[in-house]
């Protein structure tokens, strides 16, 4: 179709169309928002009133003093929680010290020395006593093992009674260690 309208007018027409399109879009958007606002208004008012009522109720409940029985129950619960925490913490560190001690003894032990028993006990004043029983091939090897433990800074004292040296070979020994 030949349209002899000047180009500037054609551009104006296009601009005019987009202007109208924008107006229609804004009008539709505005109408949609108004309709949405109007339709949502009753629900909003209702929920707003409910919210305020509930806040007021909560405040009044908070301000009411607790009965005597409830207070006792709360204290008992708190005490129980503390105890449980203590038990849980104790349980977590149960084998930590003994494991370290056993590892240290095994590290110092020579290959020809056999350990048959290790017993561990917590004494008073946080002292921990370790009793080690086993076999040594000779007195020299036993003494060497004792010396190695004495040199270990993790042990406070190493007690090897003289009775352990009665036999000359294949000695059954009993060592008492005091851990730091």
């Amino acid at each position, binding site marked *: *179709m*030949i*349209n*002899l*309208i*000047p180009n500037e*007018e054609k551009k104006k*027409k296009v601009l005019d*169309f987009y202007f*109208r*399109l924008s*107006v*229609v879009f804004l009008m539709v958007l505005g109408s949609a928002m108004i309709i949405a606002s109007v339709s949502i208004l009753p629900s909003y008012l209702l929920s707003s009133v409910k919210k305020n009522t509930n806040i007021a109720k909560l405040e009044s409940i908070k301000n009411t003093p607790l009965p005597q029985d409830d207070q006792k129950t709360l204290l008992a619960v708190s005490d129980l929680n503390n105890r449980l925490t203590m038990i849980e913490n104790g349980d977590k560190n149960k084998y930590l010290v003994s494991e370290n001690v056993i590892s240290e003894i095994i590290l110092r032990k020579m290959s020809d020395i056999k350990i048959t028993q290790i017993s561990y006990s917590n004494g008073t004043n946080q002292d921990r006593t370790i009793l080690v029983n086993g076999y040594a091939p000779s007195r020299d090897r036993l003494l060497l093992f004792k010396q190695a433990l004495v040199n270990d800074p993790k042990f406070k004292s190493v007690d090897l009674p003289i009775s352990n040296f009665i036999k000359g070979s294949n000695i059954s020994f009993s060592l008492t260690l005091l851990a730091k």
Partner: protein
Amino acid sequence: MFLDSFNRFFFRLFPIPKFLVTSSFGLDISDESLKFVELIATNNGIKLGKYGERKIPIGIIEAGKIKDSKGLENVLTTLRKEEGIKFVRVSLPEEQVYLFKLNLDKAGLINVREGIELSLEEHIPIQAQEAIFDYETLKEDDQKLALQIGAIPQNIIENYLLVFRNSLISVQSFELEAQAISRSVIKKGDKGTYMIVDFGRTRAGIFIISEGVAVFTSTLNLGGDMLTGMIKKNFNVTTEEAEQMKKKFGLQRNSDNREIFSVLLNSVSVLRDEMMKNLLYWQTHKDEYGKDHPPVEKILLTGGDANLIGLAEYFSISTKNKVEVGNVWTNITDTGNSTPEITFNKSLTFAAALGLALGDFEYD
């Protein structure tokens, strides 16, 4: 096909808001009158809205040029106030429009408009800067682009635009009268070749439409008023009586009508000669590819005096072509199912205005 049906169905359910559509009136301006038509899209197709005709005092427009801007502004302002016209599609007088074919080589062609602008002065007697033009593609292949160009002096368009602007009416398009008339009388999508003779009150336009494009136009200063004037002069009767005689007898050739027939024949034969000249030109000249033009299938008559008794038969016999009075409702309404408000004879005078208003329903 499927897309068309889907579009129709979709827009029937969700019509484009009126505010966006800017429904425009078809406005056919001639030297002595102004015809307006509004078409409305309904669920049952296109319907006729407001329509009418206003007289333009003599001297305001002459041969398509505005001579009295204020006078035309008054006519248009009154029309806007009375009919609520805000947007219009206007037809331009053929006398002022240059229509020609142009072949452009595609090699090196970047912008079609620039290409046209460079060769515009070879075809029309006005400078490219002083012309407003538009084009329609006729044919296209790998090397060439065949275009139909319409051009008009800028000052004429600016004069029209200024008058419309001052009358607070927005112009959507300035179209060729031939293009507008063809849109109303030739079925949409019909790619045939037709000659349209618009036999108006003061002038007659002869157009050739091929493949839906106005490819040839010419104007003759001969109209229905001239026929009435000749009867008045020869039989010494009043204008009203001469008009009645013209409508009653027309070009019937019988014993009662022998004298009127010979009087009218003098003028009508001039129009026939012009038609024959144009037909001959069309049939003997080659197109832009060196091929013969397709033959004219039919001659369609429009305009206020197109329905003159015996006119179609006379043209048919003398041009040896099929001639019929055009149906301006071809693309608007199914006349078999609904009857438009305007009578058939009257509707022929609104062919251009209806075609212009139909522009709203096509792609701009």
